[in-house]
Every structure is written in structure tokens, then in C-alpha cells.
């Protein structure tokens, strides 16, 4: 049977849209885990990145650790944490944080490091102190790169939250796990399409956030160098 017709049938079945196993409920769970993971990682990674980028202390250690973390297979980390700590929301969020911190941290660090030294000199020349230089100059200039790191992290988190279903919690991954277990191809494909859709929406959201948060002057500059 054609894959497209399978998908259309699955999505048009009204039973998919209600109840605790319906698409809205599963989507809500998925967004919940993803947001929790992303917010926690941002709260951890951005301050650390700002600090190491601003002071230059521990920069090598930070980037090496982050590169090492990138080589870790996510499902291995998730399954190991669940095996050692038990099933539940906490191990899942821990694994998501382990995954999302490196890209945000590296981009924040590099974003602050990469601020044009002439701009920094000008800020100091205008009488700004270290803290003011960080929050009035370095943070705004680094924002595009920080947001890009967050976007990378967010897409990975949304994708990985799918695996949460393998360790017994909800989310869109349930369709993939249950579809696989019941040999129900339409359910499996429907779940995959929903995850793809959520990832694309996430990417678009960050494009919007970029418009909102990046200073107009920086946007013009980025457009000019294109």
C-alpha cells in the first residue's frame, strides 16, 4: 500500500485526536520534556559560556569537554542513566540536558570570544566596566551565535525526546515504539512525520526568535556580509 495513503488514513482517523493517547496529548508531553530539557541546559550553559568567554579562563577545558560530549552516543547515555536511576521524567531530562549543553556552551563561549577587539576597546574607552562590557556589548553581539547553538540543541532535544518512549514515558515516540511493536506501519510513519513536523516548527521558531532578539544593526551587518 502506498505510504502517503497510509499516512492520510492514520491522520484522518478521529480516534487519533482525543484521549490520553491522542495526538494532542502526546504532542503536549513531547513539548513538555523538550522545553524542560532545553531550558535547564540554557540555564546551565549560557552563564558558564559567558563567564569563560568573557574571562578566557577555562576556555580550552570547556571546548574540549564539549567536543568529548559530542562523541557520546545519546541513546547509550539515556539508557545507562535509566538503567542506573530507574524509569521516570528525571533520567530522561538528565539525558536531554547532557545532549543540549555542549552546542549551547561552545557557541556562547565562541560568540563572546569572537567579539571584535576593537568594539571591546571602544566600550572600555567609553568607560564601561567588565560587567557592562559583558552585558551591553558582548552578550548582544554574541546573541546570533548563542541562538544558533540553542537551535541546534533544540532540534536534537526534540529528536531525542522520541527515544524517551523506549524507557517507558510518553511523547510522540510512543507511536514509533508501539507502531514497531504492533507491526503497525501507519502508526510508526505517522509518529515519525509528527516528530519531523515538530523539528521544523522548532527551527522556524528560532528564526522568529532571532528576528526578535538580535539587534537591528547586527542583522543589517549579517545581511551585508552574506
Amino acid at each position, binding site marked *: 500500500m502506498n*505510504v502517503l495513503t497510509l499516512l492520510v488514513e492514520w491522520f484522518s482517523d478521529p480516534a487519533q485526536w482525543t484521549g490520553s493517547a491522542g495526538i494532542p496529548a502526546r504532542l503536549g508531553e513531547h513539548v513538555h520534556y523538550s522545553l524542560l530539557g532545553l531550558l535547564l541546559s540554557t540555564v546551565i550553559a549560557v552563564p558558564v559560556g559567558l563567564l569563560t568567554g568573557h574571562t578566557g579562563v577555562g576556555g580550552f577545558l570547556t*571546548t574540549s569537554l564539549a*567536543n*568529548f*560530549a*559530542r*562523541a*557520546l*552516543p*545519546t*541513546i*547509550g*547515555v539515556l*539508557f*545507562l542513566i*535509566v*538503567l*542506573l536511576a530507574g524509569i521516570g521524567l528525571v533520567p530522561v531530562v538528565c539525558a536531554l540536558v547532557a*545532549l543540549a549543553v*555542549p*552546542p549551547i556552551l*561552545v*557557541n556562547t563561549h*565562541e560568540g563572546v570570544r*569572537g567579539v571584535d577587539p576593537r568594539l571591546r576597546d571602544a566600550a572600555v574607552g567609553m568607560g564601561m566596566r567588565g560587567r557592562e562590557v559583558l552585558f551591553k556589548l558582548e552578550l548582544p553581539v554574541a546573541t*546570533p*551565535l548563542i541562538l*544558533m*547553538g540553542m537551535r*541546534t540543541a533544540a*532540534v*536534537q532535544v*526534540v*529528536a*531525542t525526546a*522520541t*527515544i524517551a518512549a*523506549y524507557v517507558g514515558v510518553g511523547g510522540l515516540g510512543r507511536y*514509533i515504539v508501539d507502531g514497531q511493536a504492533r507491526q503497525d*506501519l501507519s502508526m*510508526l*510513519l505517522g*509518529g*515519525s*512525520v509528527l*516528530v*519531523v513536523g515538530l*523539528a*521544523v516548527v*522548532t*527551527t522556524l521558531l528560532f528564526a522568529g526568535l*532571532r528576528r526578535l532578539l538580535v539587534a537591528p544593526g547586527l542583522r543589517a551587518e*549579517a*545581511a551585508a*556580509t*552574506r
Partner: protein
Amino acid sequence: MTAAYDWVSGIVDWAIADWSHPGEPDRGILARLLEHMRLSYVSILIGLAIALPLGLACVRWRPVYPPVLTGVNVLYSVPSIALFFLMLPYTGFSDWTAIIPLALYTLVILLPNVVDGLRQVPEHVRQAAVAMGFGPLRRLVFVEVPVAVPVIIAGLRVASVATISMVSVASLVGLGGLGQLIVSEGFRRQFDAPIVVGIVLTVGLALVTDAVLVITQRLLTPWAYAGKGRSARKRAARAEAADAGDDAVTSGTVSDHGESP
């Protein structure tokens, strides 16, 4: 302290006992490791085989580049786990189910690096080659590509680490090399030793591959390390640090993409 020692030595004992099974070439840790290497290296090589000509075309015909880059980025935002499952109806349980998505993902890192590498060939170098009588093809093969090698290899390093750690996700569709240890031998049997061994070997493979690429670069571009090699290394370091893409913040040099399971 002794508990930690017992835990580690238990894992090591399991790893030694299950390393390989004589007469059963498909079982054991070694077989999974070799499968992991096959899946990741084939994907990276296919990605490079696509990125090189595509990058050349993007440099030659400039307007082609932005739409191609956007397309590659959109593709990258598709989670790998979903893409593996979406491939199933077409490729079944063959290696291609893992290789095709993985190869496509490497493009988001490799393509911008190939394009940037070729674009940063200094104009005086190009002109010197023309003055020496090099035609376009010879100039490309003997001058432009070699000068671009450091940036291309910087991209390969990021892409190979990302690919090697992503292969494990394919174990959810029954492929995936070392991921098989993690999923079927470890998690389904609630047994931690295979998971730890799977993680350690994956990270080890990524680090060894990275080291091999660094050495390859040194051999291919000895001039970059003679005296004024700093700029090339700095460039490579920057290529690793920044993120990719359509957002021209780092003038297009990308790639902070880890895995996207």
C-alpha cells in the same frame, strides 16, 4: 571504592568474554565494532563524494549555493530516528537505511566547508597558477583543492564524530553496530556492561578517527605546518567552533552539529 572497582572489573570481564565467538562471525563485540566502522565510514565517504562536486558547482555558479545550503539545512532538521523509520518501507533492513540518512546529514557540515575552503584560495595563488600555464582543471586539482584541504578536513573531523555517535541510533531499526550492544544486549536485558562498553568504544572510535584525520591533514599539507602554519590551524579551529548555515554570522563557516538522533 571497592564497589567501583568491582563494577569496572565486571564490565571488563564481560567485554573480554564476549569480544568474539569463534565460529560465529556475526556475534560478539568485535563484529559490532566492525559493523559500526563500516556504516559510519561508508556514510562519511559517500557524503564527501557528494559534497566535493556539489561544492565545486556552488563555487563555479554562485547563485546555486544559497538554495542548496538551505535545502541541506532543512534536511538536517529532520531527526535521524524519524528518517531511519521513514526509510524502512523503501530500503528495509539493509545497510542503506542507515547509510543514506547519515550521508545526507554529513552534507550540512561538509558542503559549507568545501565551498569556504575553495573560496578562500588567495587570488595571487590562483593567478600564479595561471601564469605558470595551468589550465582550469589542472589548477583545480593541483592548486585549489590542496589549498582547501585544511578546511575540508576540519569539516570531515566534525562530520565523522557526529556520524560515529549517530550510527548508534540506527540500532532502533535493527542496524547500528555498537548501538546494538546498547539497545538489544544492554537495555532490553537490563544489563549495564554492554551499554558501558558500547559508549566507551563509540567514543574511542570517534577519537581515533579524529586523530587519523589530523595526521592525514599533516601529511597532505606539510606546508601548513612549516613556519607560518598558524593561520590554517586557526581557520580549522574556527570552522569547528562556529555553527553552520544560512545565517551568515561566521561568513558561512559552519558546523557545530553534534548528533541529532
